[in-house]
């Protein structure tokens, strides 16, 4: 593919990033997403909307999140200077709240009376339930039955926050199935309901809108790095489920040619096995959940289940903008296995006193692969997009530790 002049002009008016993205939805939803596009287009130019969002980001979420020099990880790997963008310190414990605040303000503005969302790890569900509580809107969270089992603490948090949890048993009972069910709810309750999608996927305008709300991660990083080191970082690294934390960090740097950008997919048991969730490495372009993107699927176009130790990463697709950035070569996509993530999880906990979520542990494991060979003045930023409190039970299980 030819090199683009700018990587930040997408999507086009049809919601396309190159051939990816689009609006592949049932007619019932079409008028709704056109409405949403219009409402979002107006909101993003309205100073009152932006002021309110910023105020909440500061005082409710606790932004800006620190850009932390991870001294001991840096020493341990003995190469690049490792910085962690600490979005795990956000209220609710992950980057998901950045997007949820933006979308709930939009829902209010559009006069919607009910919120729905899908969730995998439960981090997005918790963030949605949180903003729904804050703004006094009832919310229903669709969550795969399998994920409900492995993310119990988050399920209880959502219930405490007043959300209704709808277990989804179709398919493998994970994130993809939860998204199907949320879409089914949305076609049924078109007038009242706002669907807060949790990642840079879905029909246009979601991928662009979620990216925009998450871009604060990259904007802050840029400014913080300039203040700290007087220059841009050399490498960015983030994990990818649907790709929202990664897009948020990457987007403001896409046109900074000197910056190497790396996305880390979930390699599960290895991308040479059927048990992984690396859509870019192991999938091919197809159409699901409203957009064209790389999907894990068989030769008949049937979607296959992703696997990852991390419930937040086992989605068989990926945001369409990532598909585009892969094909243009602007971003490099790699993967890390379950085991590598578990190892990185433990290392970070012991060396930095930061318990990371299993999702960014994938990114950290890749940092461990490249940092030793990089010079000591190489500035490497990893998005620490979530904290690991939610994962301690399942990590204990993987380590064969009985914590009762």
């Amino acid at each position, binding site marked *: 593919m030819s090199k683009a002049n700018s990587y930040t002009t997408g999507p086009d008016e*049809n919601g396309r990033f190159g051939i990816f993205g*689009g*609006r*592949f*939805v*049932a*007619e*019932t*939803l*079409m*008028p*709704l997403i056109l409405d949403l596009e219009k409402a979002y287009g107006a909101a993003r130019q309205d100073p009152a909307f932006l002021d309110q969002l910023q105020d909440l980001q500061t005082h409710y979420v606790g932004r800006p999140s620190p850009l932390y020099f991870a001294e001991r990880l840096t020493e341990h790997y003995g190469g690049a200077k490792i910085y962690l963008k600490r979005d795990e310190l956000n209220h609710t414990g992950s980057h998901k709240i950045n997007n949820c605040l933006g979308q709930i303000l939009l829902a209010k503005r559009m006069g919607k009376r009910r919120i729905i969302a899908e969730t995998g790890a439960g981090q997005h569900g918790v963030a949605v339930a949180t903003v729904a509580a804050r703004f006094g809107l009832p919310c229903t969270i669709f969550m795969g039955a399998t994920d409900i089992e492995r993310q119990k603490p988050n399920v209880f948090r959502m219930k405490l926050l007043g959300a209704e949890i709808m277990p989804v048993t*179709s*398919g493998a009972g994970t994130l*993809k199935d939860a998204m*199907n069910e949320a*879409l*089914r709810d949305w*076609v*049924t*309750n*078109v007038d009242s309901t706002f669907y807060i999608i949790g990642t840079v996927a879905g029909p246009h305008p979601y991928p662009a809108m979620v990216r925009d709300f998450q871009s604060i991660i990259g904007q802050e990083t840029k400014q913080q790095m300039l203040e700290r080191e007087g220059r841009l970082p050399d490498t960015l690294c983030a994990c990818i489920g649907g790709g929202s934390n990664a897009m948020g960090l990457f987007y403001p740097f896409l046109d900074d040619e000197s910056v190497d950008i790396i996305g880390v997919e979930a390699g599960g048991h290895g991308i040479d096995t059927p048990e992984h969730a690396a859509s870019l490495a192991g999938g*091919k372009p*197809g*159409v*699901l*959940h*409203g957009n*064209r993107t790389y*999907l894990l*699927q068989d*030769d*008949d*176009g*049937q*979607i296959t289940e992703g696997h990852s130790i991390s419930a937040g990463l086992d989605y068989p697709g990926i945001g369409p903008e990532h598909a585009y950035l892969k094909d243009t070569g602007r971003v490099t996509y790699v993967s890390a296995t379950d085991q590598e993530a578990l190892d990185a999880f433990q290392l970070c906990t012991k060396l930095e006193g930061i318990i990371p979520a299993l999702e960014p542990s994938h990114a950290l494991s890749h940092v461990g692969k490249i940092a030793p060979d990089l010079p000591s003045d190489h500035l490497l930023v990893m998005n620490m997009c979530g904290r690991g409190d939610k994962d301690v039970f399942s990590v204990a299980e993987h380590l064969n530790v009985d914590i009762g």
Partner: protein
Amino acid sequence: MQQTRLDNTFKQLGERNSKAFVAFVSAGDPDPVTSLKIMHGLPTAGADIIELGMPFTDPMADGPSIQASSQRALKAGMTLKGTLDMVRQFRTDNDETPIVLMGYYNPVYIYGVDAFIHDAKQAGVDGLIIVDLPPEEDEELCIPALNAGLNFIRLATPTTDDARLPEVLANTSGFVYYVSITGITGSASPEQNVVEEAVVRIKRYTDLPVAVGFGVRTAEQAEAIASVADGAVVGSALVDVIAESLDSQGLTSAKTVTETLKKAQELADGVKRA
């Protein structure tokens, strides 16, 4: 565009002042052999048009009944190629009954749009309903299909307002499928007067026949709907009969074909009373 089997069917029904019974089953449900038998029996049971579902793992606009039906078919090994084979076999002794393939875009996209259109046309398919291809994505499949002489049947819904209707109808041919409720297949039943208003509204913008579906379950409902439209579509109620007829292992039983066709006959009788 040339006259298709769909055009002829609606024309003949119109001349008799009769309404169309459109029967939906998933290709390969509960297995390819039984499914073909059901398909063969549907015209005799009174189906004027067969809507054949192309099974997909993630049928986002479908309720539990059609999801399950799709899953049974996939489990029994049905593929898009297998679906086209079924149509081919059906056509060996039925050249009249229109067949509309209904499903989602991804299997077609992976099959390859040009290859799919070519093979579908050759197999004897008359029209396509692709749930997740709104007019905004017409370049993908709708335009190439129309150029090849396949009808592209669009869904109009309660959320399709007057401003949008012309766009939705623009590249529609064969008939218009009015989705009578906001929701998934097999859910709430539509109100007759609401449907009537909608059909009248659509007919202000098109001369095409309007068939109505989603939520039609009984012969009485089929009659009520057909009396205010050009046809009634029934899917979930038929595939529920398939589901109920299966043995304890979930396999086809002696009752599967007969019970399904009996239900089809009841529904057809309802439509014909309209």
